[in-house]
């Protein structure tokens, strides 16, 4: 158990953050991934290569319901993660991680029984199912007589070339090219690190209604970071991008942007001043500032906290929580976005959910347990880190729709405050509503103009109070291309976020300088 365990802490971290430093991934398993799918049957196409059969699944679901659970599902996963790392000028290390396993869940009301195994045999699967079944203690229910493949899935992240078919030597030039260009970007750059990752594989969900869905969920990301030196001082920073896409995602324009941003975000830190301490107006730049929404409202709207009555938003549905021009959504439909999914990890359809519509709090983010609790349809937010975890309500891509103001007009409106552009991480307390996000880059705003750069400052506020204080929203919505990962109950999930330029009338800035 971690040092700071428990459900009171939600974390959002960027790919460049230290939490990923120890993850291990790379390139492999060609042979398995391309193995002949002999014995493949309807619906179990991918997993047939591991000996999974229709009968095995039906038996497991029957065992899962043998003590009277309301419903049950099985979640098969094969995920191949590859990492390539460039350090000191060469791509000199690779990491690969292969995950293969199956989880069985039994639900009775709000209660969950869960078991999983890496051993994809009928006996092991049945044992996991019996373990999960123990959440209930009634007469057995019948499992599904037949399984039907759900063919209605959208295709939000088609790839021309699957990652299984990309050899390492096709990827290496991406890393070495970024390294060279970053050093060329400024004579102040002393160290460059590049890490590349790709992910392939499949999930299969079958439930006690007899539904089977299968999805292939590719992912790739590059994190570029650098250290610069000037007058005996050092600064580090970087830039990262992520998407459910193939190699074609790494266009020359994107790679150039990565270099430009990483270099400028690092070298500008030498000129940065310490921002003031205390409450002041804060303008959040379009894009990555969506971290505000993730922390200030997104987690609090996840319906597991609300069915338990412990979210600060629990009694606010239908009430005005923000100015009428504030609209906040969570959706999984954006083509190739890191937070997009064709289907959630319970097999439910994924669309767009309005958290706030015209300033009114509208809809929670549901998994199937909370949807049943509230008597509403699922919203497709039931997600999990892997087969080792039961699904819980999670965000996908969370952002604010464009508003009536202009960016320039928003900045010009602030006499003394800060403008934030780049963030590393955030956290929220679900019940108290207090949240933070850490600003890596930004500027002072003095007399309506951006002046001196700032760095390394945490901002802290209270969710509902800050939503009310968003008093200007621009028309320049950007969905951030960064590789955001959200942590909840010990489970990590890829997410996206975005926002137009907005003004928060007043929020506490954790600086060290004197307040004006």
């Amino acid at each position, binding site marked *: *158990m971690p*040092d700071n*365990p*428990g459900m*009171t802490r939600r974390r959002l971290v960027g790919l460049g953050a*230290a939490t990923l430093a120890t993850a*291990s991934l790379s390139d*492999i*398993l060609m*042979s*398995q991934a391309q193995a002949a799918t002999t014995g493949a049957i309807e619906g179990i196409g991918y997993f047939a290569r591991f000996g999974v059969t229709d009968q095995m699944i039906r038996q497991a679901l029957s065992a899962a319901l043998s003590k009277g659970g309301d419903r049950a599902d099985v979640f098969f996963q094969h995920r191949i993660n590859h990492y390539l790392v460039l350090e000191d000028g*060469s*791509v*000199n*290390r*690779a*990491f*690969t991680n*292969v995950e*293969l*396993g199956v989880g069985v869940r039994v639900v009775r009301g709000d*209660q969950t*029984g*869960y078991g*999983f*195994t*890496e051993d994809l045999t009928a006996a092991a699967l049945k044992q*996991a199912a019996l*373990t999960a079944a123990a959440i209930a203690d009634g007469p057995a229910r019948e499992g599904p007589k037949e399984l039907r493949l759900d063919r209605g899935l959208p295709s939000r992240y088609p790839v021309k070339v699957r990652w299984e078919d990309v050899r*390492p030597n096709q990827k*290496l030039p991406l890393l070495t090219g970024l390294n060279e260009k970053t050093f060329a970007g400024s004579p102040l750059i002393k*160290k460059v690190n590049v890490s590349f990752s790709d992910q392939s594989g499949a999930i299969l969900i079958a439930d006690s209604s007899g539904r089977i869905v299968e999805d292939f969920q590719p992912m790739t990301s590059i994190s570029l970071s650098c250290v610069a030196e000037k007058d005996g*001082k*050092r*600064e580090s920073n970087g830039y990262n991008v992520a998407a459910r896409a193939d190699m074609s995602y790494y266009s020359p324009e994107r790679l150039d942007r990565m270099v430009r941003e990483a270099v400028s975000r690092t070298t500008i830190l030498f000129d940065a001043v310490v921002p003031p*301490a205390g*409450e002041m107006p804060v303008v959040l730049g379009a894009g990555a500032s969506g971290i505000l929404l993730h*922390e200030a409202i997104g987690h609090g709207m996840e319906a597991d906290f609300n069915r*338990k009555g*412990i979210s600060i938003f629990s009694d606010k549905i239908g009430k005005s929580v923000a100015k009428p021009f504030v609209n906040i959504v969570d959706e999984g439909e954006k083509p190739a976005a890191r937070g997009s999914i064709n289907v959630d990890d319970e097999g439910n359809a994924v669309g767009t959910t309005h958290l706030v519509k015209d300033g009114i709090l509208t809809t929670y983010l549901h998994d199937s347990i909370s949807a049943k609790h509230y008597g509403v349809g699922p919203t497709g937010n039931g997600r999990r880190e892997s087969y080792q975890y*039961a699904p819980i309500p999670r965000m996908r891509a969370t952002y604010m729709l464009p508003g009536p103001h202009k960016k320039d007009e928003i900045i010009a409106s602030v006499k003394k405050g800060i403008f934030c552009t780049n963030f*590393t991480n*955030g*956290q929220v307390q*679900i*019940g*108290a509503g207090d949240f*933070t*996000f*850490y600003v890596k880059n930004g500027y002072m705003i003095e007399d309506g103009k951006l002046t001196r750069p700032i760095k*390394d*400052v*945490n*901002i802290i506020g*209270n969710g509902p109070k800050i939503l009310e204080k968003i008093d200007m929203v621009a028309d320049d919505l950007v969905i951030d291309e960064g590789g955001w990962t959200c942590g909840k109950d010990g489970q990590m999930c890829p997410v996206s976020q975005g926002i137009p330029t907005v003004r928060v009338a007043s929020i*506490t*800035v*954790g*600086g*060290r300088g004197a307040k004006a």
Partner: protein
Amino acid sequence: MAKDKMLETTELCVKTALAKGAQEAGARGYRVRDIEVKWRDGKLEKIQEATTRGVGLQLYVDGRYASVSSSDLRPDALETFIADSVVMTRTLAKDPFRTLPDPALYKGQAAVDLKLDDPKYAVVTPDDRLRLVKEMEAAARDVKGAEAILSVTTTFNDSLSETFRVHSNGFSGSRRDTAFWVGAEVNVKDPDGRKPEDYSYAGSRFWAEIPAAAEQGRIAASRALSRLGSKKGDSAVLSMAIDNRAAGRMIGFLMGPLSGASLQQKRSFYEGKTGSTVGSPLLTITDDPLIPKGFGSRLFDGEGIAAKSMPVFDAGVLKSFYIDTYYGKKLKMAPTTGGASNLVIKLGAKSQPGILADMKDGILVTGFLGGNSNGTTGDFSLGVQGFRIRGGKIAEPISEMNISGNHLEFWKKLSAVGNDPYPYSTIRVPTLVFEGVQFAGN
């Protein structure tokens, strides 16, 4: 006794890697049995039980290096996986600094029983687990002011973890450890609409020594209730005490900059400071891997290097970095160990009440919220909650505040250390007091 099947698999991984073309290889196999029971507001919320297992390999092929892992242990699949991994490793750039550790460093493991493995692990029954989670809820609901409680969630967790490490240059080690944890989380209703939460967790290596479950319920409820009416304070420079449960986060920030990787990659504000004063004379921290029943205890580290005690800070002077084999070679420094075990802080004489009485005026931080620390420059900025201290006593609760500073200045302002090390973490830190800390609030 028959050889453990996972040890056989681990040995086979090394053998296969060599057969497929690696010159050196290391492997780690693991099997973890983990059971969790979660109870919420009078009924079971969740039960989860599973045994997970997998292997990881470090491959040294023609002067190149890769690290790979898999949970697919079907023999044919594993062999193919290793063969493909060796081929993949050959596509990388050569790296002359990659080798297995010097076998001399494997020698000299301490001849002590760390008492990490409870032979009675298996005696715990489903009824035991249920009894503990119920006890915690009952205790939480029995504290004064419990009518403000919105929800109580309690958890029992037990695990048995077995790992095997085998290196082609002569290392073979295994480890078996058990752990039992009880925890409670409580949400309360504040008349102002907020629903503050707090928690308490405690654990042990031995079932017979599991901390009192009821106590966790009481602490979680009392701490959550103490948050009622909390308000943002004014921005000010004040003395700060950090309670022992929260203080580990501040020490954790020093671990990254103390690593060989940060040092070699010019990302450490401690570069060039070995032997220099970087903290107050009260700052003495030792990395001690040999504490019986410790949560970070070990006889050998992640590379197989025999574990021994290491001074990290001594009376404010920086003594050691965490140097693994790879970065040791890059830096031309002798390897120490690649990662922390148990961090033990030299204690003061006073309990927290005594320390607060001496401090007289300031803020007691009981929890951090978000924030970050820049390992390259030492700048940090963190959300905090806690209590105002007035006249040496705990006064009104504060929240939604922030502290900022720089580690190279901050640790020199350490002015008092308590006698109350936090026992349920690898960082055994007592209450700490710092002078002149910038708080941001109103």
